[in-house]
């Protein structure tokens, strides 16, 4: 029953977001260096952090899937990665907007965090054609779990490599997170992080609930010997 905790969770998400947005626009001070533009920080960085956590969680679910051989974990892994990919797109777009505002270019190669993020996105984008290419459902689930684990191990390594390659001469664009943040900004940032995390969890639960409903409908159809119809998707694992 995935819809069970969904109502309190979504209410908590809405409340946190209301608080966060109020803090961002009415409480957090204007940063001296970047001016009003810096406010993107409260959106971009939480998107990125939560997306990466989501990938790691997807990897953990994949490990559980392989160890317990229960297809539900594959569904959790799939949905976690799915929502994280959407957050990654959001992170990349907001990052590009921030870069354009700061440097005048939509894309900058000398910002290692943004570049590693792009590479992570490229990798997880291959998750879908990868699943699509494997026909046998059980095998698809198993291979997808291996992919999620490999990709999860890849993320920290990738950040390390790209960071190391960044020339130390170029000033970091998003250096705001480096130096000590004033308390007011830190509080706002933490609220934004929590809100983003709650949003992630809500969306994951939401999607699992929808999948579960689809699965129950299929069960019902089968029980009534009614025509089942074409499978809704070749790659999304079914949830019952």
């Amino acid at each position: 029953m995935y819809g069970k905790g969904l109502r309190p969770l979504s209410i908590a998400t809405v409340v946190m977001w209301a608080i966060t947005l109020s803090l961002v626009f009415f409480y957090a001070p204007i940063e001296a260096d970047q001016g009003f533009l810096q406010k993107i920080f409260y959106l971009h960085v939480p998107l990125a952090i939560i997306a990466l956590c989501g990938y790691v969680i997807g990897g953990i679910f994949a490990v559980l899937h392989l160890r317990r051989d229960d297809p539900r974990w594959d569904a959790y892994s799939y949905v976690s990665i799915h929502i994280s990919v959407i957050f990654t797109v959001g992170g990349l777009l907001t990052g590009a907007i921030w870069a354009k505002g700061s440097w005048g270019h939509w894309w900058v190669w000398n910002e290692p965090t943004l570049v590693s993020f792009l590479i992570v996105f490229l990798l997880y984008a291959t998750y879908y054609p990868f699943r699509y290419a494997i026909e046998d459902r059980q095998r698809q689930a198993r291979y997808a779990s291996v992919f999620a684990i490999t990709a999860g191990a890849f993320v920290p390594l990738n950040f390390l490599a790209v960071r190391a390659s960044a020339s130390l001469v170029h000033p970091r664009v998003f250096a705001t997170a480096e130096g000590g943040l004033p308390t007011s900004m830190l509080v706002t940032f933490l609220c934004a992080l929590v809100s983003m995390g709650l949003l992630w969890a809500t969306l994951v639960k939401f999607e699992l609930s929808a999948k579960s409903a689809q699965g129950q409908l299929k069960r019902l159809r089968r029980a009534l010997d009614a025509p089942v119809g074409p499978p809704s998707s070749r790659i999304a694992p079914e949830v019952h």
Partner: protein
Amino acid sequence: MFHLLLAADPSVPNDIGGKYVAGAYVVFIVLLLIYVAIMAMKLARIEKGLGEVAEIAEARKEAAPAEPTESEAPAATTHTVTPGPAASGATAQETRP
């Protein structure tokens, strides 16, 4: 404190910065809404499927205890009666908008 920070010359003028900030938040909202729209389509499909299944179940229920030769009248009445109270979801939808 606030005024001191404002007085310090920002690299990006606040009005242009404002447009970028707005753009970023708009992107965020739009992504979220696209997701909601896709889930709404999914929900609509599930609802349609449930309606079909409900009809089949009802039809089976009526057909089981009935005589082998089913007359038009009882079949017609069941057909008109059942969608009313059974599909309360449908009526609720009609009353809401």
